[in-house]
């Protein structure tokens, strides 16, 4: 019985064996779930993926006309660029802000203020994404129209700000943990060498915590890539190659969410939406893989 682990003689109490079995099942099931989900998504899209879909067009054409009567076209380039541009802009806003806040909370706050801050940040994390979408749709929409004199405020910028607000709490809490995990002995050593607070931060704390900080950034990005509701509501949801922060765009996730309810089950369009799901899977997998490789590279250096 491999699943019960090595033979450990006869004096292992039954309760321990049961607990061990349970924990192993939990571990194995989490792997099974991932494979199960992937299998399901893949199965729904497989027929069309291998029979009929022009993969080149799917990835490189900006023309997304899944419901055209005469000439259906399934090009996702605009959606891919939409997802990446809104995420990139969101990270541009969220990373400096999130890391800065994490440094402030862990290095400059009094213990009392730190607790208050953490509560506020947790509250921020608890806001459902549909509420962010609503804020984007109303408040931020008006603000962008006024500030930039834009015809419509539902833009990439709007979506990015919403995504940034959603990823900041993740970035702050993970980055703060990473900074807190730096041994105090490093601080003491650097301070005894005459380092100022800033020198301590950028010469010692940031290098020492870089793996955790990188994880914080990547998890923030993963949150942004996967987010659906807020970008659906805030970005204008219009298939469009983005040209700048004020372009209206559409993302891969929002496309699935908006269209899946409208399509005939099993049809071409339905299957394409699942293929987009596979694409999203691949993107997140690639992000995680890159993160792993980067972190391993850092460890070796």
């Amino acid at each position, binding site marked *: 019985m491999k699943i019960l682990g090595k033979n450990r003689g006869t004096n292992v109490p039954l309760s321990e064996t049961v607990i061990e079995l349970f924990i192993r099942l939990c571990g194995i099931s989490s792997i099974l779930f991932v494979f199960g989900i992937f299998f399901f998504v893949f199965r729904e899209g497989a027929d069309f993926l291998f029979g009929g879909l022009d993969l080149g067009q799917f990835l490189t054409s900006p023309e997304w006309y899944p419901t055209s009567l005469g000439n259906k076209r399934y090009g996702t380039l605009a959606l891919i660029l939409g997802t990446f541009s809104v995420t990139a802009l969101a990270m541009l806003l969220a990373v400096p802000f999130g890391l800065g806040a994490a440094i402030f909370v862990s290095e400059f706050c009094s213990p009392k203020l730190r607790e208050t801050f953490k509560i506020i940040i947790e509250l921020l994390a608890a806001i459902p994404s549909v509420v962010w979408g609503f804020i984007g749709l109303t408040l931020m929409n008006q603000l962008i129209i006024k500030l930039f004199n834009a015809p419509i405020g539902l833009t990439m910028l709007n979506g990015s700000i919403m995504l940034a607000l959603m990823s900041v709490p993740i970035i702050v809490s993970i980055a703060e943990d990473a900074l807190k995990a730096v*041994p105090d*002995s*490093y601080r*003491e*050593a*650097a*301070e*005894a*060498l*005459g*380092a*100022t607070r800033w*020198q301590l931060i950028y*010469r*010692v704390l940031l*290098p*020492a915590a870089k793996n955790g900080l990188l994880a914080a950034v990547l998890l923030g990005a993963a949150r942004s890539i996967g987010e659906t509701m807020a970008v659906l509501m805030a970005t204008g949801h219009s298939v469009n190659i983005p040209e700048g922060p004020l372009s209206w765009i559409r993302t891969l996730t929002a496309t699935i969410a908006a269209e899946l309810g409208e399509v005939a089950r099993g049809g071409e369009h339905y299957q394409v939406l699942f293929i987009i799901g596979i694409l999203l899977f691949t993107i997140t997998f690639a992000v995680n893989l890159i993160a792993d490789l980067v972190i391993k590279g850092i460890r070796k*250096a």
Partner: protein
Amino acid sequence: MEKKKIEVSELRVRYGNKPALNGVSFDVYENEILGIIGPAQSGKTTLLKVINRTLELTRGTTVEGTVKLDGEDVHTITDVYGLRRRIGMVLPLPVGLPLSIYDNVAFAPRTAGPRKKSELDNIVERCLKQAALWDEVKDRLDSLGTKLSGGQQQRLTIARALSHQPEILCLDEFSIAVDPVTTMRIEEVLKTLRTEMTILLVTNLVQQAKRLANRTAFFLNGALVEIDATDVIFSDNPANQSTYDYVNGNFG
């Protein structure tokens, strides 16, 4: 050994309400090694932290009395970072900063301002040689300081403490996590350094004070019980019975 390098007078330190030093007065002479011995919790580390003013980084501490460095009260010095660089500090556990060996040693000079590469190269080589580590690491100065063995890291810490040509070198129980061979090597290093600087050697090994120190101070529960020539402290009749007991290991 006439000139007074450090003058401590009526030094009282509290952490919150808890006293750590209760009115301590003594002098340290230039170019001597002053051994500081005493059981745990007697205030030895606190004393070192007052001298380089890192104690004020701990919340809720109060300091009364004065510590003078070359006649100047350290608490009136405005450039506290400059003050800290005048005092090399070696902590109990070896702390290689998560930087390359080179950057570890170049850390303090860089905090003081931009340096030329060649100047830093010289500093790094000089300090690693002084700390008897150069031969072991000269071919891998770019690798992480944290990857060195404990004994090597402690010598790296010493090299780092020397990087700013400190006037005073404080060592806080440096041998606590170091093997005996490395301890002996570091002791040899200290013997050669005494001509260049004043050394405060806090040690958990009384024999180490006996081997190295010109004078030795015995601390107990936040008080300075006795300070005298090392020969006297380790003789059969130091001024204080508890000194004799502690030094001879029948304490408690």
